[in-house]
């Protein structure tokens, strides 16, 4: 049947096949042309484009973070170091069964539920060949146990990292500060390149202000990777430049003495070398352990620290603003003399109160019945208020403001840690500008005893004391003494910086004030006479102060015992020693401590004693060899005079605009 039809249509069929074969050839040619033109487009026209893409594909750049610089105290005792810390991690790709692995591990090391939970969350997020941390900070024992069993635990590895550690975490928290995980805000500010491998950045204190020096320069390696990002080989490597080591002027042993002297009371102490502005000790109490913050503090501990009424996180040395109280009296006495408002033989009668002409308001003296006849020395030694009410009134607030500014009152000290407060030394202009009010004479009167608007930070008071002690050289306080770069043989010293010199009218005026301050300790009726010990190898100059927190009503008497602890007066003490060749200047503030003489002065006494014990009698008598001190700059002062380095510039700007 089929054969018959076949034969019948043979020629038609032949022709059809012929035509369709020709059509098939055309069809083939068309399809091949399509393919060839497409391939021509990809390989010839877009070749460069795809070559670039293929290069990017296989070579990736990985950051190698630099090692952070170390921080030492003035005697080379390490304050901030990088310790290896061991992290237990698992590479899912190599682990056969994660759950049994976790079970095995939990027998060897302490695994909390939260560790496992966090780990499992990470497993889902990360690529399978990447190590995922399970436990941080293994103890040596745990490291040993896991290491021994490593052959039974495929996929488990112990990774050593460097982690910041502060051996004196509690003692130096407010000065050295700490590093912490980089947060969103910092991420925007920090150089993306330089921090590409770094997880931590300075958050506070020296760690923050010297961040650029401490951090170093990131290194990188160019690696060839496969599609999953696994490194196949390293093509090129540029080593990171480690951060600079810093030597501080701080003496950690002195710092410890000071902290001990505080006996867990709240307050602050700043000790400065008046010969060069170096900061010897900086204490803010209560303190806290900086190490808690390095790898993230848990929210409960943080809340406890942050909400405590004692405010341990608050750095009182640069942030605490206190009324200076009577500690300003030596400065005002000097002001009166140097501005020719009073003379050396100036004397008043103190009836126990002061009254402005035509006004009924009584400004009380702390001594109800008065000091009687009072000269300059007695006014300082016994801390007569009436003398200074009168003197302040005679000088006027603007002269006081101008003179006190020489000593740094109302100005940021320029210390090389960020974020200090500027305190306040009021003037008529200030009140007009800020409060839009006129100045009242009564405000001048109370400013005379360091009350009213006047506010100082402990660093300012210490710095002013240093300036008073050294005869008018106003230094910039410096925490960092020298900077050790990786390639340098020796650390570069940060030279002392004189911001300006106080203009001197008569040397005798200064000597008179120094003498009076010495009498405060060494005279029979001096307010700080308890510091005077018979075996003292040197003389101490100082001035006590009591700053009111609570205003006493006009006719009420002040009963200390009845006041609540927090409303008690702040006790202050400023001091330098030896009185003849000052080697240390100190300011102490004891919050709600009551009288300066009884509580603040002994703390300063202990610090002075500890510091001066390192000097021989000979050294105590003669002034130290003068170091090369930089002349005050005309326009601006650079906080630290290392090489024109980025850091210095950054630091400088921060101070200017902060």
């Amino acid at each position: 049947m089929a054969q018959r039809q076949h034969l019948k249509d043979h020629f038609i069929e032949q022709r059809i096949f012929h035509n369709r074969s020709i059509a098939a050839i055309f069809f083939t040619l068309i399809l091949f042309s399509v393919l060839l033109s497409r391939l021509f487009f990809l390989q010839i026209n877009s070749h460069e484009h795809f070559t670039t893409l293929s290069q990017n594909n296989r070579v990736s750049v990985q950051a190698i973070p630099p090692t952070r610089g170390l921080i030492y105290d003035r005697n080379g005792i390490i304050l901030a170091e990088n310790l290896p810390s061991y992290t237990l991690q698992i590479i899912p790709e190599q682990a056969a069964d994660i759950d049994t692995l976790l079970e095995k591990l939990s027998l060897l090391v302490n695994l909390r539920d939260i560790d496992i939970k966090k780990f499992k969350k990470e497993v889902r997020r990360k690529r399978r060949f990447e190590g995922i941390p399970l436990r941080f900070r293994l103890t040596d024992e745990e490291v040993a146990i896991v290491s021994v069993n490593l052959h039974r635990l495929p996929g488990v590895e112990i990774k050593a990292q460097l982690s910041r550690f502060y051996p004196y975490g509690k003692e130096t928290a407010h000065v050295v500060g700490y590093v912490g995980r980089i947060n969103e805000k910092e991420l925007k500010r920090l150089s993306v390149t330089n921090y590409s491998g770094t997880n931590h950045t300075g958050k506070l204190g020296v760690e923050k202000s010297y961040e650029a020096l401490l951090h170093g320069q990131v290194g990188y390696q160019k690696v060839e990777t496969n599609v999953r990002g696994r490194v196949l080989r390293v093509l090129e490597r540029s080593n990171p430049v480690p951060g600079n080591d810093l030597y501080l002027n701080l003496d950690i042993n002195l710092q410890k003495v000071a902290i001990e002297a505080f006996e867990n009371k709240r307050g602050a102490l700043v000790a400065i070398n008046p010969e060069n502005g170096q900061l010897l000790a900086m204490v803010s109490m209560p303190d806290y352990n900086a190490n808690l913050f390095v790898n993230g503090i848990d929210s409960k501990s943080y809340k406890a620290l942050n909400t405590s009424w004692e405010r341990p996180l608050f750095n009182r040395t640069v942030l605490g603003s206190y009324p200076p109280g009577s500690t300003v009296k030596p400065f005002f006495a000097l002001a009166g003399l140097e501005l020719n408002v009073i003379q050396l033989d100036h004397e008043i009668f103190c009836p126990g109160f002061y009254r402005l002409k035509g006004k009924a308001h009584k400004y009380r003296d702390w001594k109800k019945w008065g000091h009687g006849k009072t000269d300059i020395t007695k006014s300082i030694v016994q801390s007569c208020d009436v003398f200074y009410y009168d003197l302040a009134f005679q000088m006027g607030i603007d002269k006081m403001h101008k003179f006190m500014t020489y000593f740094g009152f109302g100005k940021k000290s320029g210390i090389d840690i960020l974020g200090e407060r500027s305190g306040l030394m009021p003037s008529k202009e200030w009140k007009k500008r800020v409060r839009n009010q006129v100045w009242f004479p009564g405000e001048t009167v109370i400013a005379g005893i360091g009350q009213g608007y006047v506010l100082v930070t402990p660093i300012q008071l210490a710095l002013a004391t240093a300036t008073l002690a050294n005869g008018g050289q106003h230094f910039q306080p410096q925490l960092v003494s020298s900077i050790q770069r990786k390639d340098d043989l020796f650390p570069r010293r940060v030279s002392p910086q004189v911001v300006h010199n106080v203009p001197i009218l008569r040397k005798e005026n200064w000597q008179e004030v120094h003498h009076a301050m010495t009498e405060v300790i060494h005279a029979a009726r001096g307010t700080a006479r308890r510091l005077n010990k018979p075996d003292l190898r040197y003389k101490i100059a100082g001035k006590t102060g009591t700053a009111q927190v609570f205003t006493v009503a006009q006719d009420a008497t002040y009963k200390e015992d009845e006041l609540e602890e927090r409303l008690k007066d702040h006790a202050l003490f400023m001091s330098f020693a030896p009185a003849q060749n000052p080697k240390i200047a100190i300011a102490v503030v004891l919050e709600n401590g009551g009288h300066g003489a009884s509580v603040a002065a002994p703390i300063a006494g202990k610090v002075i004693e500890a510091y001066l014990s390192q000097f021989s009698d000979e050294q105590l008598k003669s002034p130290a060899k003068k170091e090369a001190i930089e002349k005050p700059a005309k326009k601006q002062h650079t906080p630290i005079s290392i090489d024109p380095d980025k850091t210095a510039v950054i630091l400088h700007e921060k101070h200017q605009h902060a």
Partner: protein
Amino acid sequence: MPSQSSSQSLFFRLHIDLTLLMGLMALAAIGQIIFYSASGESMPLMQRQGLRLGVAFVVMLFIAQISPDTMRRWSPVIFIIGTIMLIAVLLLGTRVLGAQRWLDLGLFRFQPSEMMKLAVPMMLAWFLSSGNIPPHNRHLIIAVAILLVPVLLIAKQPDLGTSLLVTSAALFVIFMTGVSWRLIFGFIFAGIAFTIPMWLFLMRDYQRQRVLTMLNPESDPLGSGYHIIQSKIAIGSGGSFGKGWLNGTQSHLEFLPERHTDFIFSVFAEEFGFSGILILLSLYLFVIFRGIYITTQAQGTFARLLGGSIVLTFLIYIFVNIGMVSGILPVVGVPLPLVSYGGTSVVTVMAGFGILMSIHTHRKLLAH
């Protein structure tokens, strides 16, 4: 009829078409060379692929011995067995990579859908050659019905690539019967006309999205588009002369997916460049033209229909594979014949060439 030398007549008696054999062997050789690179210079994989090619050539030579007449008589039987096996696969087949294609026959796993690539055109050629040429519409409708049964079964596995190839093999049989151009273009337009309302009214948003991604993979660079983007980078970075054998970075760094199977062409293009591609495509063209020549010389309707279908399906293999790795066609799993790794597909292709050889060498010379 070209005169034949004595050696040619020897091959002729062995039912071997020397010209076709040479072309296929050259292609297989190129395939092995690039396969060595694409497999990551793996000798064991090479040996396995070599063995498969060997088996495929043996199968080809074996099939060449069977006369087209015998094939024609057995066609319905083969088709029915194949269809039953497809049903068996769906019911008790082995699942590999989410698709149910394999039938475990104890000794080896067998992929019935591969067999259908030849069984379906054979069946259609058998059916249509028994009627008028060109066929009546009634016959065409029956032919489409015969085609749809295995195609739907394969599509359900799911194996889009194979069902596409089976469909095109069947359509090429119909094409060779000389159905009018009006019917062919009418069919194409009907297809387009059907697509538009389906797109507008029947498909849901996510389905549209899936189709769009399939048509434009670059819109999803981390998902389905990733493979095609990497493949284009491989091809494009090859340039005029390529990066050199074994030097393809895309493939050796594992950026290319399935680089020794469906995407092996990208490896070739990266390492040998446009000039290498010209050589490879010329070889393919040579084999196709030889196939078309054999078809034009074929005797008997069955042989002509089947021969044309086999050659054009071979063309479709090449076009779809290169089209998809170079980003002009959606990615459907179609291997590059004789070059891609994979056992069954190469055997099927070679079996097809075996049929072509049989067609050519079983001609009765008296007929001319």
